[in-house]
């Protein structure tokens, strides 16, 4: 008997290890974030002013490279690296703003829908079904065709693409959380709906929203650059990874570098965000960790 108890005693707490799975992929993301914030100080040249004499110069390690233009210049003689750094600002600001808007609206709708259930919930569930039955790029095209391309329109459109996932997941979480004893106890004590939602339910679901938002920022960076690539997003001369690729695609034969680096930037940031998201999700839910490893 005493042996059994000894076996069930909690193990001695292990020293905390550095969570490399989350830290390593976060490095490029943080680097790009820092570069975006520090753009005015670290960009070697102006992102918009080009010299026609310095058109289509290759990156530093090739012949005919121009000093001070490490990644070469584009068709208008603008520094590719500087446009990348300033473009990071534009892409990240749009992606974070759209994610925040979409996550806030979606989570609120999910909270209300899951907590109140009934008719509102049925309408919202149908609405989610309908939007999921609609390729997002098409919706974006329809709206931007009429509203015209601009950064505020882009943020709203991308948020429209993001709210559904948040609403769906928050709703299903709240549906089960609202039956828990501590929530029922709060109801019995006479707590009002806002207090229950924001004091008792939101703290519980916040980690899930954060994980979802991490993936969303990556997804939205790709969507934004896609729309900008189609000419429906950020408009020239504002530097943006997507719209720079739109220009670069036209003369990719003459200058591989203008088409390569913005795409690499997108890929590295999105890859980093996805891996950080994976690590956060695994830390949150041991079950998925077992499954995905």
């Amino acid at each position, binding site marked *: 008997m005493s042996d059994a108890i000894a076996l069930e005693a909690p193990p001695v707490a292990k020293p905390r290890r550095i969570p490399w799975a989350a830290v390593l992929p976060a490095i490029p993301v943080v680097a790009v974030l820092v570069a975006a914030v520090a753009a005015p100080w670290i960009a070697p040249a102006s992102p918009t002013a080009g010299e026609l004499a310095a058109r289509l110069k290759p990156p530093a390690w090739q012949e005919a490279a121009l000093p001070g233009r490490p990644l070469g210049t584009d068709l208008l003689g603008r520094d590719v690296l500087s446009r990348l750094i300033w473009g990071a600002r534009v892409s990240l600001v749009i992606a974070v703003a759209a994610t925040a808007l979409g996550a806030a609206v979606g989570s609120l709708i999910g909270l209300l829908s899951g907590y109140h259930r009934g008719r509102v919930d049925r309408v919202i569930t149908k609405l989610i079904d309908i939007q999921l*039955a609609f390729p997002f790029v098409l919706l974006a095209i329809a709206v931007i065709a*009429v509203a015209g391309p601009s950064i505020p329109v882009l943020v709203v459109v991308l948020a429209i693409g993001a709210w559904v996932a948040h609403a769906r997941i928050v709703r299903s979480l709240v549906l089960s959380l609202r039956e828990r004893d501590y929530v029922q106890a709060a109801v019995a004590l006479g707590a009002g709906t806002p207090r229950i939602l924001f004091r008792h339910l939101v703290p519980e679901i916040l980690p899930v929203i954060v994980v979802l938002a991490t993936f969303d920022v990556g997804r939205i960076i790709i969507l934004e650059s896609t729309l900008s690539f189609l000419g429906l997003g950020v408009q020239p001369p504002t530097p943006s990874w997507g719209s720079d690729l739109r220009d670069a695609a036209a003369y990719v034969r003459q200058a591989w570098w203008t088409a390569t680096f913005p795409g690499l930037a997108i890929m590295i940031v999105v890859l980093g965000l996805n891996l950080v998201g994976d690590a956060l999700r695994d830390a949150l839910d041991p079950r998925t960790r077992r499954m995905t490893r």
Partner: protein
Amino acid sequence: MLEFVVRRLLHTALVTLGVVTLVFVALRLSGDPAASMLPGDASVQELADLRRELGLDRSVPAQYVAFLSGAVRGDFGDSFRHQQPAFGLVLERLPATLELAFAALVLAVVVALPLGIVAALHRGRVADVLAMSFAVVGQATPYFWMGIMLILVVSVELAWLPTSGRGGWRHLILPAVTLGTHFAAAIARLTRTAMLEVLGQNFVTTARAKGLGERRVILAHALKNAAVPVVTLVGLQFGTLLGGAVVTETIFAWPGVGRLAVQSIFVRDYPVVQAGVLVLALVFVGINLLVDLLYGALDPRIRHE
């Protein structure tokens, strides 16, 4: 099964109505189409005339009814640029889009299923790490950049395949790879997860204990049960594929609906944008219905939910 089919059909009808409504809302409430169709220096009179011609001077409910009845008859007005019905123009290009999307789908499934299965069977070993690295990188790569890089390497440097246009199978390869890679990555990851989950279950152990060969256990027992989430993903993600087709068509000058819709935005050919978006959305709804029915056939439990 009949009751299940009827329920899915009703659901699809409702979703279709919702999708048509969504297009109406997106197109009518995000600005004044007449103003975005005319050049900036158009007179007030011209604007009023165009608004009347498009029916924009009527009340919103009246416009909605007109839009619905037009959509049912396939009447979206004439293209300003091509002087022929917008719906016909879109239908002409639909086969090209479907060809591209299906090629990408087939390619993705053919590559990703074995990849996911092998990764699950060799969990934690080199094959798994390689397969999942491919999947993770594939998911982080935007379609359009992948397309540009493929053109740069395969068409320009190596001169193996044509850069653009539609013709024989040689024209199809690069666009299909571009569109399919992202999708293949998602399928591979999910197949791996689903297989791992199924392989740990009792019926697999039973099958092995019965003395069935490993090939039979994996293909007949495990894969059939792992297929349900994979089929769902393929169906749900088909919309992303149609959306990606818009981009892929633009890069490779593939004469499909997506490219037509995007070009029409820039020449303000509004009826064509409307018809193109709606037709692609309805194709997607139709595919979803097919997936749902297939799903019911694969897994009897779903029919009775």
